[in-house]
């Protein structure tokens, strides 16, 4: 990976420099440009960034930090928005900067700036230390970091086939407008479509001796079709959300087949106008992976974050019913024996895949729920020591699971969920098998409205498409469906799941947590699953 990685950096640096008119500036001269407001040095394994990183760490140490890390990042994003036959926006953004995190006598400080200069990295490092001293005034329990193996030189990049930033704007616009045209032909009144691409070049260095360079890609194409009734008394939308955001390149757009799928999405939006309003009651739910990923996200992935369980997120995201740790680890029955949940940051194409997390820890996949019993939390270096007794009792080392993440260089890293996935069952069952085995139920495709309380007990989920199941067959479309659940009861009602062949990755770009709120991109793998006797409400009202 090393040589191809360097080649990639060289190519992109040259391309960037050529655009900027700096192609001929040699490295030594560029180093001289590292005065305030100098031209940006290139990223990755660039010696200039490495120099600045060491300057930041040295400055933090000299000011009194016991531990410090610094993250440099350059993010490029591109967004395209269209509606019907028109392009609404084409935006290409680049932002770069760095953030220094300093631990002083057990208290954290963090400061960040956009200016990549020697003076500024030293100033910001001292600012982080100064802030840590101010924060220490309230100290009750000093931060202790679990050990992490230093990574003297690490490199990782999302394996992609096609660099989305190398594909022309014309091609991208062409795909979106063609998909819109197909949807309009198939009966849509309105159609909005978009593409979003991200490339994040991120360099991490710590006083533990790590230096890690990573390049991460994310891609999402999206289409939302709206159908309106003739008398304007009703409208219904259908989003393409079985095409999830992914940690892939432009090949994800290619594979999404927007043109081929647009007529179906439009036809389904039109069909929803005349769908039968659901009768309230209890139903067996057959949930498609394009829907179930969000239920897993909200009712399993969030409550098993250790910072929530310990009360650190009580003012926003909330606490957790999976608490206190000593009473639930290895003991709490979360769901039926079919429920096996695993955290990972390695599934190909997943949004959470990285080589190392944002504090230099190499993530390993770990079981969160085994045969329905809760066995572990998501952790970072400062969190893992809270579980020392449990890990020691089960003969495991006290180590972070590698769940540290920051949205950008200007945000402090903290615990964010990795991919949290429902493992497939042993039997080779699929979507159709679950429907065939269900006598009276509702099948739900795609995620819709979602809401859950601050301890993750009571949730309500909508969807994109709802089908009535009678006698093992789909007998028609329903609308205005939402189900309400209490988390442990819901997962206890899981009685049938699909096999490996029906496994699908869903996910989100915009999972918010923390204050100030940061978004995390995360995937959730799962299989079609059946839940018995779930409470369904009708959400339709007259204005």
């Amino acid at each position, binding site marked *: 990976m090393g040589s191809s990685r360097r080649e990639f950096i060289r190519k992109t640096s040259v391309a960037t420099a050529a*655009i*900027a*008119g700096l192609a001929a500036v040699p490295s030594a001269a560029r180093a001289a440009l590292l005065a305030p407001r*100098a*031209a940006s040095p290139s990223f990755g394994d660039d010696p200039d960034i490495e120099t600045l990183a060491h300057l930041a760490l040295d400055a933090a140490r000299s000011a009194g930090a016991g531990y410090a890390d610094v993250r440099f990042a350059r993010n490029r994003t591109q967004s395209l928005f269209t509606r019907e036959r*028109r*392009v609404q*926006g*084409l*935006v*290409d*953004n*680049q*932002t*770069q*900067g760095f953030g220094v995190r300093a631990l002083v006598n057990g208290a*954290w400080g*963090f*400061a*960040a700036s*956009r*200016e990549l200069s020697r003076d500024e990295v030293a*100033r910001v490092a001292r*600012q982080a230390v*100064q*802030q840590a001293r*101010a*924060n220490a*005034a*309230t100290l*009750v329990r000093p931060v202790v970091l679990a050990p992490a193996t230093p990574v003297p030189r690490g490199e990782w990049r999302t394996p992609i086939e096609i660099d989305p930033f190398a594909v*022309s*704007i014309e091609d991208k616009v062409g795909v979106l407008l063609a998909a819109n045209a197909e949807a309009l032909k198939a009966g849509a009144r309105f159609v909005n479509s978009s593409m979003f691409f991200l490339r994040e070049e991120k360099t991490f260095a710590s006083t533990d001796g790590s230096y890690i360079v990573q390049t991460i890609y994310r891609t999402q194409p999206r289409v939302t079709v709206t159908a*309106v009734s003739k008398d*304007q*008394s*009703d*409208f219904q939308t259908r989003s393409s959300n079985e095409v999830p955001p992914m940690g892939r390149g432009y090949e994800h757009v290619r594979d999404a087949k927007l043109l081929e799928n647009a007529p179906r999405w439009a036809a389904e939006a039109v069909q929803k106008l005349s769908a039968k309003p659901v009768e309230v009651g209890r139903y067996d739910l057959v949930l498609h992976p394009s829907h179930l990923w969000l239920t897993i996200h909200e009712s399993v992935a969030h409550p098993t974050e250790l910072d929530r369980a310990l*009360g*650190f997120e*009580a*003012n*926003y995201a*909330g606490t957790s019913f999976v608490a206190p740790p000593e009473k639930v680890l290895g003991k709490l029955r979360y769901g039926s024996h079919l429920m096996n949940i695993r955290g990972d940051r390695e599934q190909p194409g997943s949004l959470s895949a990285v080589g190392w997390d944002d504090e230099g820890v190499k993530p390993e996949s770990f079981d969160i729920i085994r045969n329905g019993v809760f066995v572990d939390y998501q952790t970072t270096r400062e969190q893992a020591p809270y579980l020392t007794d449990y890990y020691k009792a089960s003969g495991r080392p006290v180590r972070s699971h590698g769940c540290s993440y920051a949205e950008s260089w200007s*945000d402090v890293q903290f615990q964010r969920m990795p991919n949290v996935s429902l493992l497939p069952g042993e039997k080779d069952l699929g979507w159709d098998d679950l429907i065939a085995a269900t006598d009276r139920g509702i099948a739900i495709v795609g995620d819709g*409205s979602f*809401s859950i*309380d*601050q*301890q*993750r*007990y*009571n949730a*309500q989920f*909508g969807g994109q498409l709802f089908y009535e199941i009678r006698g093992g067959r789909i007998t028609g479309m329903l609308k205005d469906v939402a189900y309400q659940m209490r988390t442990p009861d819901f997962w206890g009602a899981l009685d049938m799941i699909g096999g490996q062949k029906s496994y699908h990755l869903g996910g989100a770009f915009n999972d*918010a947590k923390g204050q*100030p709120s940061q978004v995390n991109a995360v995937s959730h793998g799962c299989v079609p699953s059946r839940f018995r006797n779930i409470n369904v409400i009708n*959400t339709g*009202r007259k*204005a």
Partner: protein
Amino acid sequence: MSDLRSLAQSARYLSREECEAIARRTLGFVTTPDGARVNISSASQGNTRFAVNQVSTGGDSYDTSVTVTAHAGRRSGSSSTNQLDDESLRQAVQTAERIARLAPEDPEFMPELGPQQYQPGRNWSDATAALDPEGRAGAVRAITTPAASGQLVSTGFLDTRAGASAVANANGLFAYTRGTATALTTTVRTPDGTGSGWAGASHHDWSQIDPAALGARAAEKARASRNPVAIEPGRYTVVFEPTAVGNLIQFIGRALNARAADEGRSFFSKPGGGNKIGSKVVDERVTIVSDPFDPDVAGSPFDNEGLPARRAVWIDRGVVTTLDYDRYWAQKQGVAPTASGGSLKMSGGSSTTDEMIASTPRGLLVTRFWYLRPVDQRTILYTGLTRDGTFLIENGKITRAVKNLRFNDSPVFMLNNLEALGTPVRVSASEDGGPGQAIMVPPLKVRDFNFTSLSDAV
């Protein structure tokens, strides 16, 4: 330490002269003949988080961004950078121009505005801009110290921002303003986890926020909310504290898009065609306005395109009076475009919260809502849950804490079921505890609010 203190104490942001110079340099790189716009923003942000009665993390950051929108005929492209050197600005211009040349013609293209006159903004506060990490830690201690000595567990967030923004275009338009924003929220819980209380405030002026008072209010609610009992979900008369009202009213603000209404995909669409301007949609005691120059809810004096901001009256005594028009849709419909700044202020009445409680034989008191998500845009129907202080009212008195409840209802239905209104106050109604949009609303007493299930969450 003195040099460090001075660094932290003065919030960094770009001056008018710096913005003018950056805009001039950037526009100087433009080669397309059909105009370009530059949007500049720069801000310092400082925050302190606390949990379990101590500071957990914090952050101080400084950033700028320059966004170039270039036009080639009726084609447009945008590019942004956060680097201010000539080469970065030139590269942003070139990227925007390249995109613009590749883009298809936009049938809805609107040319850039000419020079405009602006009123000065009213949302700057020196007190907010001067709040440094020590000051923030002091404010946090005013909450954590009493909480700890009262055997309670406090958690919270203080967020401050001070910055400037500017718009300039090739037609000679230039607008500049600076603004501040801050919010302090705290959740105080009982150590046994059976009680939780919240209080929060948001304003552009830090001196309007009293940390100790917020901490005391959250602590009082935490104690009062211990050991909640279950009640049957259903329709209840509810006394909403102002924060809860703000949580819901903001969704009316988000549904005001005129084009969506005219296109038949909004609550404000009229069955049969057109929109609901002129129709009575809520109780006649309700007036909702956005006013960027009202010191209570002040905002930016211009929008992203440099259009001067103006007061907008959305609902006047229950009747829809205008909707939100962008420049294209305004021109198409023959009306003036809206640039209202996005704050919301709702009319009130003379009732106090105590009077509302006293006049209620059986009902609920709701402190605030959480995890609000749209269920049905046709009726602005939302779902969400009560949180951090939900109480039963019996025979005119608060008698006990009740478990949290999920509702499925609409702010439109709520404003049609009004029993009483109180005095409007500024609230912190954003879910994430950031400053969010400026909202000023009264406490309300409402009948028949629809709760659909019970939650065990505290």
